[in-house]
């Protein structure tokens, strides 16, 4: 084996569907899952004579995102037509932004294995989405559904600053968290609300010479895991291809490849000899947008706390680990739920514990976010307060949490009703303790004698009390009582 090493170069092109009520250039509903072709009007189906009118909210959403990514916001932008023929694009041109995108030159910080890295954002622009083609089960024909046609799409292009598949995944996660926090998209990847297309190639150094492999663009990635796997696969494939054929950027063509989830491989779709000729030109039907300072200020003022800041705050203020803070902040609604419960008086330590233990567990089991479990902030707060006030212990809290998922009542009511409240009443506990002390003379003896068995025996007696009270005894009260008893008889 000769001296060979390589560097991975990955850039991402991300399409994010914006969560507006209506489409980008007409009033049709922007909604996923409706009956095919039910959200279509003369404008979005490109009926002759129709004209587009720009959705203000979509513009603001894109500007919000650009601001959160530290981009420069263009004062003047225009709309361009991008021409290509495809049956899901009824006008056969897409309204997009070519040479004057609404923002450029930003960055996002990501943390991979404890290391921080800035990923530069080349540009963010708005465009209209295309419809959908269905091929499944049809022999010889395809079906066209235009419901998605004309819905607002934000395109984000990074510089090729990512150098491992993991970085790509982390970037994708960060971006998803960001757009969710900003409230501009639900970014549900299964529904195609966030679509990532990596451009990958390698710079191989062998015997002091450099070789660049042809760039491959991978499409159809349905998850962040698929993104990571596809990048990893491409690295190996490009390396193997180069070793076998010696193909480089200069001798080979840029290719588009599809991701096959089943086989975990990418499949060649087409090779481009020359760049596509999209014949961009300014759309004469849409007037330019000039962003005045007042408008920008209003948008900036409406920005929520960004994930990176919130994550840091969750770590310092609430003592979450980096991992837990990341998980919590990933879903804005969950992080909001946490803070809401906190504001309702939940003790912070207990609430943190609940979120990272049983709430996270239940959410994971159901494949939803904690916010989607259906347990409201007041009920979560109430549960945490019961623990904080020593009315129940954490074991009972976990059991109650499970009940809260199906029962709409307040946890305090359930605990009361089902007799789960902690026993803190010293006299009744003393009675139980006395019975146990009599029945376990040997352990009492050990607990009184300083030495290695003392601690164990003490714990054993405590455990017996908890067992007898089915976990409802207040451990602190029992602890005090026991210490008193052991000292008394001495």
């Amino acid at each position: 084996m000769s001296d060979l090493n390589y560097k991975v170069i990955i850039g991402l092109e991300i399409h994010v569907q914006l969560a507006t009520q209506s489409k980008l250039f007409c009033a049709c509903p922007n909604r996923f899952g409706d009956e095919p072709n039910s959200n279509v009007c003369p404008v979005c189906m490109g009926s002759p004579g129709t004209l587009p009118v720009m959705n203000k909210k979509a513009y603001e959403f894109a500007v919000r995102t650009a601001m959160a990514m530290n981009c420069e916001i263009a004062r003047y932008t225009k709309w361009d037509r991008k021409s290509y023929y495809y049956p899901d694009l009824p006008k056969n041109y897409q309204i997009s932004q070519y040479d004057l995108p609404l923002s450029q030159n930003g960055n996002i910080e990501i943390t991979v294995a404890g290391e921080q890295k800035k990923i530069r954002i080349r540009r963010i622009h708005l465009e209209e989405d295309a419809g959908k083609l269905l091929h499944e089960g049809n022999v010889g024909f395809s079906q066209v559904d235009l419901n998605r046609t004309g819905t607002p799409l934000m395109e984000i292009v990074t510089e090729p600053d990512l150098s491992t598949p993991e970085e790509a995944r982390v970037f994708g996660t960060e971006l998803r968290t960001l757009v969710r926090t900003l409230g501009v998209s639900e970014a549900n990847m299964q529904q195609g609300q966030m679509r990532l297309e990596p451009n990958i190639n390698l710079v191989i150094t062998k015997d002091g010479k450099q070789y660049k492999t042809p760039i491959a663009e991978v499409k159809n990635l349905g998850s962040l895991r698929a993104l990571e796997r596809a990048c990893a696969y491409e690295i190996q494939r490009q390396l193997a291809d180069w070793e076998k054929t010696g193909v480089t950027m200069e001798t080979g063509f840029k290719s588009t490849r599809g991701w096959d989830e089943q086989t975990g491989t990418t499949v060649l779709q087409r090779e481009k000899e020359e760049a596509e000729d999209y014949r961009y030109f300014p759309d004469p039907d849409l007037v330019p947008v000039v962003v005045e300072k007042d408008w920008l200020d209003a948008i900036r003022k409406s920005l929520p706390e960004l994930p990176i800041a919130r994550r840091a705050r969750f770590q310092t203020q609430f003592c979450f680990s980096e991992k837990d803070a990341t998980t919590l902040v990933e879903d804005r609604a969950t992080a909001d739920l946490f803070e809401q419960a906190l504001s309702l008086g939940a003790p912070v330590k207990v609430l943190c514990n609940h979120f990272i233990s049983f709430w996270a567990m239940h959410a994971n089991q159901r494949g939803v976010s904690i916010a989607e479990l259906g347990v409201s902030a007041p009920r979560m707060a109430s549960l945490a307060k019961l623990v904080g006030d020593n009315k129940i212990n954490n074991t009972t809290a976990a059991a109650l949490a499970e009940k809260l998922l199906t029962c709409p009542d307040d946890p305090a009511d359930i605990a009361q009703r089902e007799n789960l409240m902690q026993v803190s009443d010293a006299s009744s506990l003393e009675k139980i303790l006395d019975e146990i002390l009599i029945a376990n003379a040997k352990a009492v003896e050990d607990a009184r004698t300083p030495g290695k068995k003392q601690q164990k025996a003490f714990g054993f007696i405590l455990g017996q009390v908890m067992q007898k009270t089915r976990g409802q005894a207040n451990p602190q009260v029992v602890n005090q009582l026991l210490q008193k008893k052991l000292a008394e008889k001495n």
Partner: protein
Amino acid sequence: MQITQLTAFDLLDQIKKRQLTARDAVEAFLKQIDKHEKTIGALITVLPEYARERADQIDQMLADGRDAGPLAGLPIIIKDNLCTQFAKTTCASKILIDYQPPYNAHVVEQLEKAGAIIIAKANLDEFAMGSSTENSGIKTTRNPWSTDCVPGGSSGGSAAAVAARMAPVSLGTDTGGSIRLPAAFCGISGLKPTYGRVSRYGLVAYGSSLDQIGPLGADARDIALVMNVISGHDARDTTSVPESISPKPDYLTKLDTPLKGLRIGIVKEYQSSDGIDPQIVAAIDQATKLYEQMGAQLVEVSLPHTQYAVACYYLVATAEASSNLARYDGVHFGYRTPNPEDYIDVYSSSRAEGFGDEVKRRIMLGTYALSAGYYDAYYLKALKVRMMIRQDFEKAFEQADIICAPVAPTTAFRVGEKTSDPLTMYLSDIFTISANLAGIPGISIPAGFSRDSLPIGLQLLGNYFDESTILQAAWQYQQHTDFHRQIPAGFIEQ
């Protein structure tokens, strides 16, 4: 006077006074259509049932003493590139031969709200691309003044129909002269409003930054009547100008104001234009002399870049057209080739079979102008020249209130005379195109007849949103002339 010879203004007056019903009016014009359509070929669709039903509704409203609108009972013909839910909209193209729009154009809504009755849809050059209406994929329209001649284009059907008195007024569209040229060839009046004055919503686009809808009629007053109804802001067209920028006037109010002191610009460069028929030059001279007698003041203005207008136009308009017409692909609406090999063939064969030669030629020219490597040299260059042409007008309008010019270098030419040479045909628009590039309004009015008894047109160009002044100048001219009252022989009811 017979009903079909009445101006829109007089007809409306008689209906308002209940001397005439809307139904009478509709029947008279339908009869005229019946009688002459075979010779003229002005119309693609005639709507007798629809028109009668509308007329009866309006008569009922009037009988009930309700307000039926300012154009109550007025029969009108509209160009077949304006969308109607109640009638096919073909654009005179095989590709849209059975196309039924799912909505009405803004101007159609406005007309119907005002009580006008759309009785037919007029022939045009396919997708409004042409200067003679010979590019229609459906039929050839003949000029009522001489059926050997073209009516001009692309609103040839709309112009010929009014000249043949099939309707008192019509709507056309003007992208490079398509209202003014046929108005001149057919001896009637036709206005292209300022870009943004009339909503384009529902006008099937050809060159989106140039297209405007406008009225054609016997005289300036009839045009003003229709302008009052079709102009104004429409939120569905973002290039439509809001009231806050330019309030919509009542176009009738200024018509009778005398022209004393009006500064009329005479274009220096047009004085020495080669290839212009001397009879036209003489007619324009006569007209300017008349204006002077009426108290207007003649000033010389310079439009140095208008000689580049045709070249500029054929890049801008075709580039936009190549994109606007991409949607006719045989997938979602319109003609599809009967046996496509595959989905790509649905596109290329449907388009090849559905579009006529001139449309294909312009799509290709526009595609070429926008294609990689040529954009800067052609399209971008044209946009810059367009700016220079606009600046010419801005300067000229500092010195003059309106500009007086020919409409075309010739009178109506013979059918087939120019079809083999597209470039020669394009040069018919040499005097009209620059108004579209700049976006200013222009009107064509009858100003005489040639030795062959063919009408000669006079063009008055106005400043942005100043349709009122050119309408006033046109109307005042028409108070001293009677060219606009002439109806070609054979079209006067006996």
